[in-house]
């Protein structure tokens, strides 16, 4: 089993991963191999099984509605690739 390069391109686009042609080619085989490995799952009888999303059977806790964070913009933007006037800069967002 292997994925078509079209499928690989589509998935790469969904994941916003820039790939070159060589990577796309090798991924179409490798993804096929990995999907072949996980295909074993389809044979398991899970008709009456509840999916398990978490290893522990617990419920979500609620936090008190209190403001605990202070303004740390300077520290956070010190590591930003590009910021101006407190805003993160990106290529133009077109709506």
């Amino acid at each position: 089993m292997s994925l078509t390069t079209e499928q690989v391109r589509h998935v790469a686009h969904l994941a916003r991963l820039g790939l070159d042609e060589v990577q796309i080619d090798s991924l179409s085989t490798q993804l096929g191999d990995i999907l072949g490995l996980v295909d074993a799952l389809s044979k398991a009888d899970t008709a009456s099984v509840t999916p398990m999303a978490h290893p522990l059977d617990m419920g979500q806790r609620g936090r008190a509605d209190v403001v605990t964070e202070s303004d740390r913009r300077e520290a956070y933007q010190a590591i930003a690739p590009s910021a101006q006037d407190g805003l993160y800069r990106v290529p133009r967002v077109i709506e």
Partner: protein
Amino acid sequence: MHKDSLAALAEGLRSRRFSSRELTEHFLKRIEQYDEALNSYVTVTAERALAQADAADAQIAKGEGGPLTGIPLAHKDLFCTNGVRTACGSKMLDNFIAPYDAHIVELLDAAGMVTLGKVNMDEFAMGSSTETSYYGPTRNPWDTDRVPGGSSGGSVAAVAAGLAPVATATDTGGSIRQPAALTGLTGIKPTYGRVSRYGMVAFASSLDQAGVVAHSAEDAALVLQAMAGFDMRDSTCVERPVDDYAAALGNDIRGLKIGLPSQYFGDGLDPQVRAAVDAAAAELETLGATLTPIELPNTPLSVPTYYVVAPAEASSNLSRFDGVRYGHRCAEPANLEDLYKRSRGEGFGSEVKRRIMVGTYVLSHGYYDAYYLQAQKVRRLIADDFARAFEQVDVILGPTTQGTAFALGEQTDDPVTMYLNDIYTIAANLAGLPAMSIPCGQSAGLPIGLQLIGRHFDEGRLLNVAHAYQQVSDWHAQWPEAYA
């Protein structure tokens, strides 16, 4: 000093045979001396370490502090450390100076421990060899042509070579236990939810758990004690008192029921590894434990389940790395899409890309039920296997890995073969169970690991069994000759 137990180091500090500064300098010197060959450290924080050491010395002088005050350690480079680069083995975070501490970093700082630096790992913890790191592979101190295992390869190499007395690590599918096994160390992955994940860069959120690699169960118990416990900031962290691990070490193991799953002793297991594990089991039997064969019938499905669940969660967790707020950003993006695609394309290495692709695919439209949902169901079957087994036995014992450390470059071409390495370790993550690896022999001069898996929150018992074994064996006291 680097071969002393943590208890011995603490005693040396308290009795002023040496200061924390001297101890810290000793390790810093060893790092300088040995790490070029091993590449276990990505960042050495010497200045900071010495400042912490001085603070610890001041505390000790006042008769304050606890059992870990003044003792150095290394952090796996996915625990955020305020003001220190936290790179996760990735070009993506090569410039990421974390503006906050991980919960466990806070706790271990507060316990007075001294951070020597940040240690290498597979990129975003994805790998079993520490070869996927942007900072180059880490080498196994037992044989530098071989891998130390992964993803916590830097943690184990540093501890095994005496470049840190102990190190933090994480385990998503075996990333503490497998490298501990390949380097002759004791590594424990606690129950999911026992240690806060806050500030630990996520790989697969429902599987990741922080733990320790050390030279002995006794050392691991001390550090785990300081890391474990409730943290409001992690919704999956359990609000439950932490057992007294040090106290549990001394318990008698007579009458302990040990289960040996037939699925962990089948095809693919190296005969030497098998012999060592059998011998260790027999040793425990002589200490009064009983051995019972058990079945974990869904074991063969654990690798397929893991390689759906983990990449799915990873693909999602890694979407935040987009070049906008921190991390790698491509040069001169032409537009938004270009910014995303090139920043991510350049920032991530090939194994990470592979897993993002798998994860994106299995979550995408039309495939969710067949892959992700089905994997979650099989995950339940695997967890149920354990629940049934633990009705019969107290602890499950088996090998940690099929063989000993493999050569660098040996498995990098074939992801599926690499993934199958995790066959014995993955299930504990899927079920959220505590598990550890302890050394139980050697084959051709390379360490062999024994795995113990316990009931939820039964870390104390695992440490107890490991300690009992280490009282009657000396595999954990073996050192790679070049670093002794």
